[in-house]
């Protein structure tokens, strides 16, 4: 689910940015720093949409850097256990299939695929019902219920930041393993 929430972050700014454009510099640095990041707590930060408040700067001892506490509004994408959402199938094999909902990687194990669907190998591996009416293959759209999430912590080369850590978006949330298959919206890929 996408949410609009307010987050806080302490921004460190180099003295060369002080001056008339201080605020602008702060905001553009904030966008660069947080957009595309992900944390287990808040999910993926998709876009900063506004600034709520910029607190008083504090000069750090020994450096010229100043720390500003910034409160900002942003759109985040955060999956929840029990949530039902739609996703696009990216890969099918005999273990199950992979799908993507925005930046979130999803795996549906074959144990959770309905029993009446059989795996068919070939050029276009797929799961098909016995009567052939429903087919899950690459690029199909499926509707899933999330039964568990995992934030993969092995690849945290994180930029540590106070209470929450941010991880580069690509390595991130390998999370969401274990999804239950709910029902299919549309077996697309029928498009010629």
């Amino acid at each position, binding site marked *: 689910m*996408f949410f609009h929430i307010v987050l806080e972050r302490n921004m460190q700014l180099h003295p060369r940015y002080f001056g008339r454009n201080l605020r602008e510099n702060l905001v553009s640095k904030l966008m660069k720093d947080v957009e595309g990041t992900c944390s*287990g707590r808040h999910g993926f930060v*998709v876009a900063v949409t506004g600034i709520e408040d910029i607190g008083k700067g504090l000069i750090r001892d020994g450096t010229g850097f100043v720390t500003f506490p910034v409160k900002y509004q942003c759109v985040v994408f955060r999956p929840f256990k*029990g949530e039902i959402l739609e996703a696009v199938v990216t890969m099918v094999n005999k273990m199950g299939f992979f799908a993507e909902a925005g930046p979130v990687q999803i795996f549906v194990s074959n144990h959770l695929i309905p029993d009446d669907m059989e795996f068919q190998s070939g050029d276009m591996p797929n799961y098909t019902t016995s009567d052939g009416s429903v087919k899950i293959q690459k690029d199909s759209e499926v509707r899933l219920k999330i039964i568990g999430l995992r934030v993969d912590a092995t690849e945290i080369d994180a930029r540590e930041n106070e209470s929450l850590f941010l991880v580069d978006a690509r390595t991130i949330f390998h999370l969401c393993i274990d999804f239950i298959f709910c029902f299919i919206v549309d077996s697309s890929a029928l498009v010629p």
Partner: protein
Amino acid sequence: MSKLEEEDASELKLGEDFLKAKCLMNSEVSILLEHRYEQIKQMSDESINQVPQVFEKCLQYVKRFSRFTNQDAVKQVREVLSRYQLAEFELAVLGNLCPETVEEAVTIVPTLKSKGRLDDEAIERLLNDLMMIKKFE
């Protein structure tokens, strides 16, 4: 991560961080990101490469899974659904998935019934309202 254990969207347990957060429907996010994408493109040609992957993926996702594309229709969906005293999360899920039958709606959002707030009739009315917006979009 014991906190993750306690979360369950099917019971509307979203944790304290998201309890009061505003939920957005895919259609709304689509309008927002599309707008933002235009802005980024205008700023400079180089920065097209700078669009973070997460942004790109979300944009593709919401474009593909938006039920309503017309801005007025999207506004209307939120307006109409808010008449039914739904939680933010329920509202967004219904708006995203647009169920067609009462049974489907209750499967998708079990809390509709668990609290005994909405009877079949009310849900039926809600779905009809949604259908009308879709029809006249």
